[in-house]
């Protein structure tokens, strides 16, 4: 028989105002097993906790029931109290008589009655509690960062800085991500390459960082502190260790007509290529879709010119298995395809481009060497129209419902840069709202209007009509003037919505990390845990969690790194002891529990049992991995024989509560 102590809290007048706490303490005194019952003004205060501690010692209590606020508030507090007095912390149960009684019922009599019933239920439950000892699992002191854009780079650098090893997996041949394609960055207009490439080099030179470029995550197993990840290194047909990045092959390759993905197809590259001069690692890659040697065995020029002998046409995809304690997702974004918005004529005219394409056109390392020329006839555009919110804020079944967040600012940047470099160019921006919530952001936008004379027009463009003379007739609303405006433009720039990278969905499934309907990863708490996934050990960095600009991405990347460091700094993780447990004597090995377990925590093994007449029986029985089980209880219901039960929320405990409530 348990020796139970009951402690009723007044919570000032919060509880005592509508619950007769003395009556509650008195009524619960006569419950079976209760040897002590009292009330006090604030049980959570030091004095209150001392009352509990003293009672545990004095009355040799084996169970404690506290009638107070929600267990979500102070369960941890009271468990510590019990522990300090030498009682197993899991011998504490809480009856929630504040959120569930005093705050929602005005009637003292009804409130007191309900508080007594809830107290009884807690007593009934604690009578069946058993001391629980949480298990521990070791932490592998290495982190994985998936995605090598600015988010992944920053996270990796910060983790490495704290002394932990970290691997970056990047699907492209180089790290750097979208930021490498940008020209200047708002709101300070420093050049993207100037601030990014040193960080890329830092990554390459840091002893703690390993970069798996041109690689993808293909399988994830395990759990927080102990993930096993399979990384697929795609065949690049070049030996990374031998290639010096001299670039000889990329100049001699005869296949010259390959659309240059780095410049978004605005110019061509060779079939063997290094994406850009500052690539990390600076290693060539063969594009198998275009290489004549790989396609039909006729060429081999790159192998001939390579002094290092790095070319390997027979290279195959290879797989590496690594163990990690934490995983950071930093998979980033892409602009959406504009097929559904042909009223803007993106496919119908070469001079209708996306903002990212404009970045390349303006970049000194871009297809025009930094001179802004129209793609169609390579002439200088004199009138440029920017269209905002193309595919953002849509509810038309074609676009995205969210605001892409970065477009207002980069468009102000583009407009400003163009006006500065080419003062003879007129720039129009059609906008619905200009959204600039960021440090020095609105000032930046105002400068575009006031100092650079960019024409901001409140209204949306309805149609872009290419004219026979090569101009683009832009027809749109000027809502403030209440007129339909027509602008003859030379170049139209569309601010395409951004969406999570296509790889995110399958990765989310592999990591069992939840995602929203737009394929953004969801955070554990939208305000208080913004860089953690609800799945333990998975952290989020950058746009994979939601649209962000560079400053925000970098701060989130740092935050994700600090959470990872906090995890890796621990030698062992304490497991939740309220996990499932199988009674081997009852288990019939049917596998029903294994099928419903979302964590793969249940395994089967053949075990020897004593049979009748000194025989030995071999039976297949389930066992639960305490470190992997999260304690949801799905298996306990699926189990037909009743072998599976959940510690802390056992069948008998819950039924005892039901009985107490229905009494």
């Amino acid at each position: 028989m348990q020796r139970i102590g009951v402690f009723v809290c007044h919570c000032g007048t919060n509880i005592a105002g509508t619950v007769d706490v003395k009556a509650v303490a008195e009524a619960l005194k006569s419950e079976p097993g209760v040897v002590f019952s009292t009330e006090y003004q604030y049980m959570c205060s030091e004095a209150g906790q001392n009352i509990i501690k003293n009672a545990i010692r004095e009355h040799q209590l084996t169970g404690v029931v506290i009638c107070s606020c929600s267990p979500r508030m102070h369960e941890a507090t009271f468990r510590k109290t019990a522990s300090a007095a030498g009682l197993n912390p899991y011998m504490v149960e809480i009856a929630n008589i504040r959120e569930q009684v005093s705050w929602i019922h005005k009637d003292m009599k009804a409130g007191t009655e309900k508080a007594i019933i809830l107290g009884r239920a807690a007593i009934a439950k604690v009578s069946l509690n058993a001391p629980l000892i949480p298990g521990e699992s070791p932490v592998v002191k290495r982190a994985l960062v998936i995605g090598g854009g600015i988010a992944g780079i920053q996270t990796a650098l910060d983790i490495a800085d704290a002394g932990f090893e970290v691997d970056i997996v990047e699907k492209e041949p180089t790290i750097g991500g979208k930021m490498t394609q940008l020209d200047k960055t708002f709101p300070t207009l420093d050049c993207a390459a100037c601030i990014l490439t040193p960080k890329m080099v830092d990554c390459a030179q840091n002893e703690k960082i390993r970069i798996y470029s041109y690689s993808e995550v293909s399988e994830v197993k395990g759990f927080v502190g102990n993930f096993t990840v399979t990384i697929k290194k795609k065949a690049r047909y070049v030996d990374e260790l031998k290639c010096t990045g001299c670039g000889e092959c990329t100049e001699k390759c005869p296949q010259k007509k390959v659309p240059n993905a780095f410049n978004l197809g605005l110019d061509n590259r060779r079939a063997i290529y290094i994406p850009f001069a500052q690539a990390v690692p600076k290693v060539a890659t063969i594009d198998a879709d275009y290489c004549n040697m790989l396609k039909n065995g006729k060429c081999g020029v790159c192998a001939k010119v390579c002094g290092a002998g790095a070319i390997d046409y027979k290279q195959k995809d290879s797989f590496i298995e690594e163990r990690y304690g934490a995983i950071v997702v930093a998979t980033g974004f892409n602009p959406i395809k504009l097929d559904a918005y042909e009223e803007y004529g993106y496919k119908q005219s070469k001079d209708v481009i996306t903002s990212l394409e404009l970045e390349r056109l303006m970049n000194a390392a871009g297809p025009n060497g930094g001179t802004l020329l129209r793609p169609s006839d390579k002439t200088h555009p004199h009138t440029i129209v920017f269209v905002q919110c193309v595919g953002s804020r849509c509810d038309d079944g074609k676009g995205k419902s969210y605001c892409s967040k970065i477009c207002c600012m980069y468009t102000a940047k583009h407009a400003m840069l163009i006006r500065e470099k080419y003062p003879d160019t007129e720039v129009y921006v059609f906008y619905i709202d200009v959204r600039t919530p960021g440090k020095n952001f609105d000032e930046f936008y105002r400068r575009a209007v006031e100092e650079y004379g960019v024409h901001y027009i409140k209204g949306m463009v309805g149609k872009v009509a290419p004219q026979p003379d090569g101009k683009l007739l832009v027809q749109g609303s000027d809502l403030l003037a209440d007129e339909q405006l027509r602008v003859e433009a030379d170049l139209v720039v569309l601010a395409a919505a951004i969406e999570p990278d296509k790889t995110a969905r399958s990765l989310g499934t592999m990591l069992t990390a939840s995602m929203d309907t737009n394929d953004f990863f969801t955070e554990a708490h939208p305000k208080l845990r913004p860089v953690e996934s609800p799945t333990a050990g998975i952290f989020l960095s950058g746009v994979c969690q939601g649209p962000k600009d560079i400053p925000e991405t970098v701060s989130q990347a740092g935050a994700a790194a600090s959470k990872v460091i906090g995890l890796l700094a621990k030698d062992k993780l304490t497991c939740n002891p309220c996990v499932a447990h199988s009674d081997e004597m009852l288990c019939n090995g049917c596998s029903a529990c294994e099928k419903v377990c979302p964590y793969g925590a249940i395994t089967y093994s053949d075990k020897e049992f004593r049979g009748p007449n000194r025989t030995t029986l071999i039976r297949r029985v389930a066992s639960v991995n305490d470190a992997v089980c999260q304690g949801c209880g799905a298996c306990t219901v699926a189990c037909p024989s009743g072998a599976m039960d959940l510690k802390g929320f056992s069948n008998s405990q819950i039924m005892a509560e039901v009985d107490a409530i229905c009494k």
Partner: protein
Amino acid sequence: MQVNNTEFKPKIVAFCCNWCSYAGADLAGTNRLQYPADVKIIRVPCSCRVNPIFILRAFQRGADGVILCGCHPGDCHYTTGNYYARRRMTLLFSMLDYLGIEKERTRVEWVSAAEGAKFAATMNEFVQTVTKLGRNRKLEDLRCRK
């Protein structure tokens, strides 16, 4: 409010998952949203922890209505628990209905941690519905009655 002693007060058992619905109930409390004292909440880690046997037991012991609250589909802390709960309860409720426990006495409701108002409104409505149906006499074990 004068409590009329002859008035029927139903016994309602509410199973709430720890992550969403129990937090939603807490929020209802924090916002002082009133609902009848007839509702008593049992905390479970996940809606999928609720064994149909618990519900049968509740009716047997004299409960007049049982409600199961979990996270919204897709929001389960354990990813898929609420889907199991939904499937199990659909089967159980139709069986209970067959046994003569009216469908209105049983319910599954998704309440998120942010939906204190929904929790209170759901409970108010559920209590009202069950009160109208009156005492559960079909499954109640008479030996359990005082």
